[in-house]
């Protein structure tokens, strides 16, 4: 069985020292190992951004696509081969700005994919502009007088889009991240995992310390029932999204692939491309 080491390759990440994404990478590697996966059974599909580079740093199949489109590609991969564990990953700009529409629809479609957002409240790769996750008043290169737009609440949007698994974690807490990603991979349906992953170079506000001060874990609410949509939504609103843990799970809804008429358990990629002469004649007969 593969160990965490098998999910490492010898590529040195080009992230800045201290970047939150390092731990996210480690957590994914650990989670894959603990789920008992082999590297070739995993496909990591990522977007463009500092975070998007992650698909190149995990020893698994990796596809680094275009900005904002990791989810459509990931869904194509899953449909082609449902036996693969498909992990989509990218930044907050990638998933919540240019990719917002796909995020909502991928959640709604509910294929068995794990989507990890490295949420640093800023655009790292393009050197520090605002992101949909930046708070009001946040000064960046593109908002020198401070942002005036309400920050997007990924957790609220995920739940309202019909998510069946919604979690949030923090890059400093590698154990929680690992456990959440593991649960996300095991969840049969779309798993949305938002991870606060500080950008140490451009975001001087939402730092490791800042998060430590502001986040609260769901385990701290004694009677929290993460199978209740209404309760999850209420809690997110009350805490303004600053909570961590598995916030909502619906295990009863079947995944997209299992609902598609005629869709076999065996990977489509392994099925024959040919049709029989008999079938062909039948198909042609429709047009006589």
């Amino acid at each position, binding site marked *: 069985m593969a160990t965490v080491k098998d999910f490492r390759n010898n590529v040195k990440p080009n992230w800045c020292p201290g970047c939150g994404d390092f731990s996210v990478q480690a957590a994914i590697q650990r989670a894959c190992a603990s789920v008992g996966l082999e590297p*070739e059974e995993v496909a990591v599909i990522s977007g463009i951004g500092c975070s998007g580079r992650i698909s190149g740093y995990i020893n698994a199949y990796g596809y680094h696509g275009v900005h904002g489109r990791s989810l459509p590609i990931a869904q194509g991969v899953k449909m082609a081969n449902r036996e693969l564990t498909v992990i989509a990953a990218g930044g907050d700009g990638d998933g919540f700005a240019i990719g917002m529409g796909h995020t909502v629809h991928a959640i709604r479609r509910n294929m068995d994919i794990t989507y990890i957002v490295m949420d640093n409240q800023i655009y790292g790769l393009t050197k520090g502009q605002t992101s949909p996750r930046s708070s009001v008043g946040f000064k960046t290169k593109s908002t020198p007088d401070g942002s005036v737009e309400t920050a997007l609440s990924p957790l609220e949007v995920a739940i309202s889009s019909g998510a069946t698994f919604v979690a949030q974690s923090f890059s400093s807490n590698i154990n929680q991240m690992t456990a959440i990603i593991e649960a996300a991979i095991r969840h049969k349906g779309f798993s949305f995992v938002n991870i606060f992953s500080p950008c140490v170079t451009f975001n001087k506000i939402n730092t490791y310390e800042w998060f430590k001060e502001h986040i609260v874990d769901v385990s701290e609410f004694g009677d929290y029932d993460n199978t209740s949509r209404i309760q999850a939504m209420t809690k997110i609103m009350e805490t303004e999204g600053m909570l961590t843990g598995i916030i909502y799970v619906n295990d009863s809804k079947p995944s997209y692939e299992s609902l598609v008429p005629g869709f076999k358990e065996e990977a489509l990629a392994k099925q024959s491309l040919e049709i029989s002469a008999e079938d062909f004649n039948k198909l042609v007969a429709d047009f006589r």
Partner: protein
Amino acid sequence: MISQLSWKIGGQQGEGVESTDRIFSTALNRLGYYLYGYRHFSSRIKGGHTNNKIRISTKPIRAISDDLDILVAFDQETIDLNYRELRKGGVIVADAKFSPTVPEPSELRLFSVPFTQIADELGTSLYKNMVASGASWALLGLPIDVFNKAVEEEYGRKGQAVVQKNIEAVRLGAEFVISLAGGPLPDFQLEPSDGKAKLFMIGNDAIALGALAGGCRFMPAYPITPASEIMEYLIKKLPKYGGTVIQTEDEIAAINMAIGANYAGVRAMTASAGPGLSLMVEAIGLAGMTETPVVIVDTQRGGPSTGLPTKQEQSDIFALIYGTHGEIPKIVLAPSTIEECFYDAIEAFNLSEQYQCPVILVTDLQLSLGKQTAEELDFKRTKINRGKLQTGELPTLEENSLFKRYGFSEDGVSQRVIPGEKGGIHHVTGVEHDEVGRPSENALNRQKMMDKRLGKLNHVKVTNPIVVDALHKAPDLLIVDMNSLGGTVDEARGRLDIDGITSNHITVRLLHPFPTAEIAPYIAAAKKVVVVENNATGQLANLLKLNVGHSDKIANVLKYDGNPFLPHEIHSKCKELHKQPVKELV
């Protein structure tokens, strides 16, 4: 007895024009006639004039005719808009209800038949279509049983009672018109056909069927006119083969999903028209850069922007070839007949896996939506070739090493492996990368990778990149076209022949990489080259000028008002161009 005849039915959209046409032509098809249909419709759901025209022939035909023999009219607007098209002695069969008249004195025969009244008497005015078609069918004097069979198929699922009422409507319509005309019209009697039922379909059907036979098992797509039929066909058929169609949130999702699926080893395609293609440009670049196979169908329609969504045009050519930032390998195939739609769909998938690049299959609205007779489709020609895809067991990779997915090779095509394979792990990125797919900014690697990717196009082999009809060594004219225009051009050439103007004919099927070597000798041999196209800027002519040169003798016949060419238009323009001295051509 005549060998061909043109029939048109017109009315308001939603009034049953289409179903009437369907029954009429199904019956003719069963009788063994060759058919070629044209739909005139607007971008709205109900209301607005629509008409369907069918050309019926005892021999294969691939063009609508200049004129019309029979017009079936549900309203006066239909007569007003279409009577000029009728030939001398042509016939109008119209609903007596609106007291039809022919606007000008003319040599037309008008049969006023109480479509609505007869239908009402049968229970509902919905039957008026059948009254009308029964009447026009009777004038042709063709056997009624085939017709009734077609009626039965159309309405069968509504129950036997409905079928019977419709058949009754057909009979009453026929009787009424015969009582006026005194019998089938002698000058409208078609020669007997070969009697063999043929395939009768639209180009989109042929593409969808070809895709299925070519191994396509997944189609993410977003609806748009005139492409939607492809997804609508495949969603019905794919489940049986384990595959499916996903209607995505937009075209960007569609193309990226198709790329993802191809990357993961499934033949997947998407289809759209101009607006959708414009949105796919970035992802097509990704497929080119990552050498991921993918097939995209563009059913051209009237542009630009939303333009004329239900009209004929061929104005996406340059956009399809060049519309990607940066430079990628890409193949653009343009089938020119309904049969080619089928075979090219298969070939598109083969090419996309052989050369590991996006393949665009481009049609025009008339080819995609015009219903026509197709030759038998040859199952034996549906061969699948997956190129350098590695399917057997792979050697184990050394520690910390990756599969050379982008290994350099003579033809630029690398071994490909799909996720899931042990020993095949590699990285894929739209960033410039090395042989195992890791990002690289190394200048030497960059240049080699560009040469590798673009160089693949030098090896592309396509069955019949051009269709050639070149009897003449040094013809007065070489006429060049693409997609649906060939048939119309051939009719025009027949008339040029009579005028004593010799012409060769080339239909370009491979738009990119351009078949320069194949086409150049014919260009060189011709006194003048006339490129016939449905656009305003002469895009196909520009491709010739760019790739073959000879700009000085290339002229254009253009039409961009949304309607397909008629044979006489091409004929008269070619005659004019023939008269002009070469230097005045351009």
